[in-house]
């Protein structure tokens, strides 16, 4: 219906404006990282060894500084992110990482929530289909006439 589309027009316009703004907004933040940024990025994924629950990038502790210095040394030496992280794991054990790696048992922590959401959506879909297949309430002619009468009385 053209009326419906006329109503939708401002929304489509808004959608376009928003998308353009977000696309522009997504640019210009990430170019290639400087060395300092790389160090900070890698350190933010490694646990501070002496702290209870901070990353090596955030903490002031001596052990965290040592980790940052070592990462800095290796970044300058040209090692890749993966090599540096692997070195840390080879000394501290795999629980020095703040994010579980995506393979083996560790992948479960990433997969299970997705599976749960899929199951939930599926269940929701099944429930709605079941509800929709219920027969609607039949309105008898007398009820219709009653409603008409009352509505007319309201308008009067």
């Amino acid at each position: 219906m053209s009326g419906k589309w006329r109503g939708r027009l401002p929304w489509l316009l808004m959608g376009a404006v928003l998308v353009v703004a977000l696309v522009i907004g997504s640019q210009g933040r990430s170019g290639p990282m400087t060395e300092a940024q790389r160090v900070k990025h890698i350190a933010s994924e490694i646990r501070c060894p002496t702290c209870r629950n901070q990353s090596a990038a955030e903490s002031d502790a001596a052990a965290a500084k040592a980790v940052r210095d070592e990462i800095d040394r290796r970044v300058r030496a040209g090692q890749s992110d993966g090599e540096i992280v692997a070195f840390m794991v080879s000394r501290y054990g795999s629980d020095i990482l703040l994010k579980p790696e995506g393979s083996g048992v560790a992948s479960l922590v990433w997969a299970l929530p997705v599976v749960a959401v899929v199951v939930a959506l599926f269940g929701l879909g099944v429930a709605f289909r079941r509800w929709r297949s219920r027969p609607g309430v039949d309105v008898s002619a007398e009820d219709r006439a009653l409603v008409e009468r009352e509505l007319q009385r309201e308008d009067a």
Partner: protein
Amino acid sequence: MNATLGTAGVWLGLFGALVGVVTLGFGLYRRDDKLLEAGRKYTWVIVAGAVLGVVAMESALLGHDFSLKYVAENGSRQTPLLFTITGMWSALEGSILLWAIVLAGYLAVMVHHFRTRATDPLVGWATLTVFVVAGFFFALMAGPANPFRVIHGAIPTNGPGPNPLLQNHPLVAFHPPMLYLGYVGFTIPFAFAVAALVTGRLGEGWLVETRRWTLFAWGFLTIGIILGAWWSYEVLGWGGYWAWDPVENASFIPWLTATAYLHSVMVQERRGMLRIWNLSLLLATFSLTILGTFLTRSGVLESVHSFTESPIGPWILTFFGLVVFTAVGLIAWRGDRLRSPGSIDSPVSREGAFLANNLLFSAFCFVVLLGTVFPLLAEALNGDRLSVGGPYFNRMTTPIVIALLFLMAIAPVLPWRKASEEVLRKRLFWPAWTATIVVVLCVVTGLRGLAPLAAFWLGTFAAGSAVRQLVLSARRQGWRGLIGRANGGMVVHIGVVLVAVAFAASHAYGHTHEFRLAPGQSAHLSGHTVTYLGSSTVKASNKTSVTAQVRVDGGKVYAPAIQQFPFATQAIGSPSVKSSLGDDVYLTLAAAPDHPGGTAVIGVIVQPLIMWLWIGGAVIAVGTALAAWPGRRRRPTAPVSAPVEVETPEAPPEPVGVTS
């Protein structure tokens, strides 16, 4: 003397709980009203026991009675008065005592509130459940977590005082009590959920009563969590406020299910639906508080908050198993009979939105819980040692929060039963356009980053929708348009949006750097100038501080410090923050000068909109108070769906619309 009094209090409380359980049990079994009336009176015995215990502990702490092991380990003559008082909850055994007194307080209020219905089996079962929970906590204090243990042998003349991190800031007097008022408060709605399932009566009457209880508990828990974030920010020195630490998560997970309940219960009130969901959410919330207590106190997970090791873990785990078994068993037994025959007509409706809300919060709860306990599961599966930290939680919860913000925007304008596109378009027009204009302005002024910009759009959209509701309501009813459940809820939504937007902005646009400065030297970061002026050393009664003076932006002088407590192992950094509505300049003394007049290393963290986290928290508190305000007395709407026939021995089938 203190030890005797305290132990007497603990045993009194335990006695009261046990005898109360037995009396009420018999009263319910025999349907004996006199026993039911008598049983509830044991509440006062429990309260007396808890009060006695607290009085004895505080008297011991304030009187420096080092014959008590707890005081010998956590008290000190040098500790200032405030921190001596709060020392009661600074370690494990005392924290159980705090739990007991808060629970006793809630129990007393509940029993008093329902005194005219004491002979109703539903109230009887609820009281019995709370007695069982209280009995458990008193049993903990009588057994593994005894706060009144006495030292054998020489009595020390002084003690180390509470953990230095708990002597640093007055918030220690507010954060734990608020948290406990919330956490423990969920026991009462849980008790009523159990009672409703046992008696098979889900009349809407009990629901309205306990909804307000849940709201209060939820409000306190929210404030407790925000205060915890504020404390972490002000005291711990890392510049952050939420680390997805296991103990932080333990307080957050029940909050999620409680929030879902507060929303979903409206569907039960209006349409009599989602009953199983609501009961399950209440049972889950309480179970999760017990699980959270276990994770915090058992030592299986490392955390900033970890209490010292103790044998308390197996006890709490057993209780958790009992609670879960009861909850699951009750739902399995009664659940299907209590299901409402109604159905949700259309997914695009208020009911549909609340159902989606339930699912999203459940997913949120699942993700946070999974991430928190996953190291334990992985180790059990194949010995892998891994850890799950901030990056995982941030990545997994972001899509859920986005979906929730979106729901927050459209749900208030969704009609019940079925919505049409025109209605939605008309009502959401201004909020959506305001949000778009805000984002365009942000992009034009140079802000970049898809995640924060999306957060700004969704946040403004949701806030706009809430403001629209409030304006319409105020226009209709004047000042009364701002109180009551729906309007208070809109204010809470605004507060949540403030917190979400501040969270996104501070994470995306924060900058941090450390500068080595000589006295008089300045440095610049993110548009701010910090000038290091010099350092001094100050000795106080309980600590020695090396303090640096730093002038920020040519104005006030701030004093980040490093504090050394006599019995602590390492020095504690004490940050100093210049807060403003726009951003916070967070200063730490990373390294003190080697010699007077030498260079110091000053850490500077600039994060925008931090203050709005605390403002948002205050708005949520105000909104909760508004929502709790008794609105115009409204009778619970008769459910549109047909009633459910339940065969219970005592009660005849309920006719439509009767509230029990």
